[in-house]
């Protein structure tokens, strides 16, 4: 299952990376003679209400969706590992404070806050790095900022259990400093579950981006992402179901395969196999 998933995901990634080089119809070529056309040889995924080719828009949108997914995962993992590691190694009051912050973030109502943050900072970033780049940074940071808590808890729990292991004690007995203990002994052994959590985060970030785009708060309307395609398609579900279908299927397939890969990784990295 995991192997098949890796195959499908690789195919999807390759398609969005190299697809636009092969399927040369521009994403914004308007052709009113082919409005809402059903899939045909000219337009394999059909067209939207402006006659824009959906395959081209899907391939381009996939780049953004996947990039957001992986970048947000990276943000979540880095923040989560940092906070979890500091909490796990220092214990005491630092640990307690960091875990309070973690719980606080977990308790925040995410969607309203997301909307608020994006509403407040979108224009600022737009002026600073341009519309597309600004929204990309904003969305990645915001999604990452709401996804690091499970990773932090996971890493902290791993640290608390690993720091009592005999091989860590042996390294302490050899005179290893705390940074060395963390980097050489504790962290490498705690990353298995984190990688698995990371794959799930990719899926969650893609869905979160889709949600934002669907609510009209993601990228500017002329830039297609999978979520934006769904948002635009919702008014035409009865006359042009293909419009929503392909974007929905792409999100579904990506999330599903990434989750399967996460499961596979968890099995492959099972400590009972390693230890």
């Amino acid at each position, binding site marked *: 299952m995991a192997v098949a998933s890796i195959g499908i995901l690789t195919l999807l990634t390759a398609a969005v990376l190299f697809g636009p080089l092969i399927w040369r119809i521009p994403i914004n070529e308007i052709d009113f003679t082919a409005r809402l056309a059903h899939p045909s040889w000219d337009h394999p995924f059909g067209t939207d209400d402006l006659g824009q080719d959906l395959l081209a828009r899907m391939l381009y949108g996939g780049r953004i969706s996947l990039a957001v997914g992986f970048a947000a995962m990276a943000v979540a993992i880095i923040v989560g590992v940092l906070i979890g590691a500091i909490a796990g190694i220092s214990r005491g009051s630092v640990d307690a404070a960091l875990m309070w912050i973690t719980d606080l973030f977990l308790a925040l109502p995410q969607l309203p806050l997301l909307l608020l943050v994006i509403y407040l900072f979108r224009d600022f970033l737009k002026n600073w790095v341009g519309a597309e780049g600004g929204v990309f940074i904003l969305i990645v940071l915001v999604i990452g900022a709401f996804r690091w808590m499970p990773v932090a808890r996971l890493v902290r729990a791993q640290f608390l259990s690993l720091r009592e292991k005999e091989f860590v004690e042996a390294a302490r007995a050899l*005179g290893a400093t705390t940074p060395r203990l963390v980097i050489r002994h504790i962290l490498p052994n705690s990353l298995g579950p984190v990688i698995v959590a990371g794959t799930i985060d990719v899926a969650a970030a893609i869905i979160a981006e889709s949600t934002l785009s669907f609510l009209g708060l993601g990228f500017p309307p002329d830039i297609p992402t999978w979520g934006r395609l769904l948002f635009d398609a919702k008014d035409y579900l009865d006359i042009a179901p293909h419009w929503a279908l392909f974007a929905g299927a792409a999100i579904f397939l990506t999330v599903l395969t990434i989750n399967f890969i996460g499961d596979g990784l968890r099995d492959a990295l099972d400590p009972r196999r390693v230890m």
Partner: protein
Amino acid sequence: MSEPLLKVTKLTKEFPLKGGLFSGQVASVHAVDGVDFHVDRGETLGLVGESGCGKSTTGRCVLRLIEPSSGEIHFDGKDVRSLRADDLRILRRDIQIIFQDPYASLNPRMNVGAIVGEALIIHQLTKTKQQFEERVVDLLETVGLRADHMGRYPNEFSGGQRQRIGIARALAVEPKLIICDEPVSALDVSIQAQVINLLEDLQEKFGLAYLFIAHDLAVVEHISKRIAVMYLGRIVEMASAHELYASPRHPYTEALLSAVPIPDPKVKRQRVRLSGEVPNPISPPTGCHFHTRCPIAQFPLCKSEAPPLKQSADGHWVACHFR
């Protein structure tokens, strides 16, 4: 006789138990309760006792892997308890530890070369990469492993081989004292003998001193020059190995020794059976810790007064009011 390599005086360790509404300290576990002993250069002191009697905690306190609550530890003229981080690191070139579980004591994600050579990097004992590799190979061969084992990972080895890796790691810093925390308890009997023989060879070769912690009396008798018996955080008897086995004085030692199986079905002997369980170290019995299970206890003396560890014959120390 010069002063001993390691001298431990009135060592105690209490682990606080937290609980209750405000996470305050509600009680404490008296793991080690006033322990005195010494280890001479190149000698082996066996430390025996049943599970939970504080023998491993004692060993770890000597290395300050666990901070002692009170008492004094002197190693080679240095006051171990007052050392700061940097000096403690230097101390750990002289004292090393071998662990019980060869599966938990090696980092599963480091290869053998990195595990054995870690101390060389920490203490910068080798200058070049070539020196480093030569030293690691040297160490591996000293403990009976091969040079080509360097690139392998711990899960590719058997328990006995893993224990050898642990020993090589401890030897890397050329220590004077190795704390052996039940180093053979997790191994098969045939492998136990190999590891014990290896430890004895190393002792002869490098003049090592061992603090040998175990619960298997036969193993301890074989390797130790002197043996200390612990019960519930206190040493109850300490004597030379031969003396202790030939004429135990403390009733607890008698009971322990009578439980060692004799590999001869014709031999019949009197078993001293202890009733009941080891008391809870959170609230150990008053007076002599052993009075709840002791066959010769007399009340109220044993319940009210803890017997001191006193010398009853030359080099034979007992903590009992009547022996």
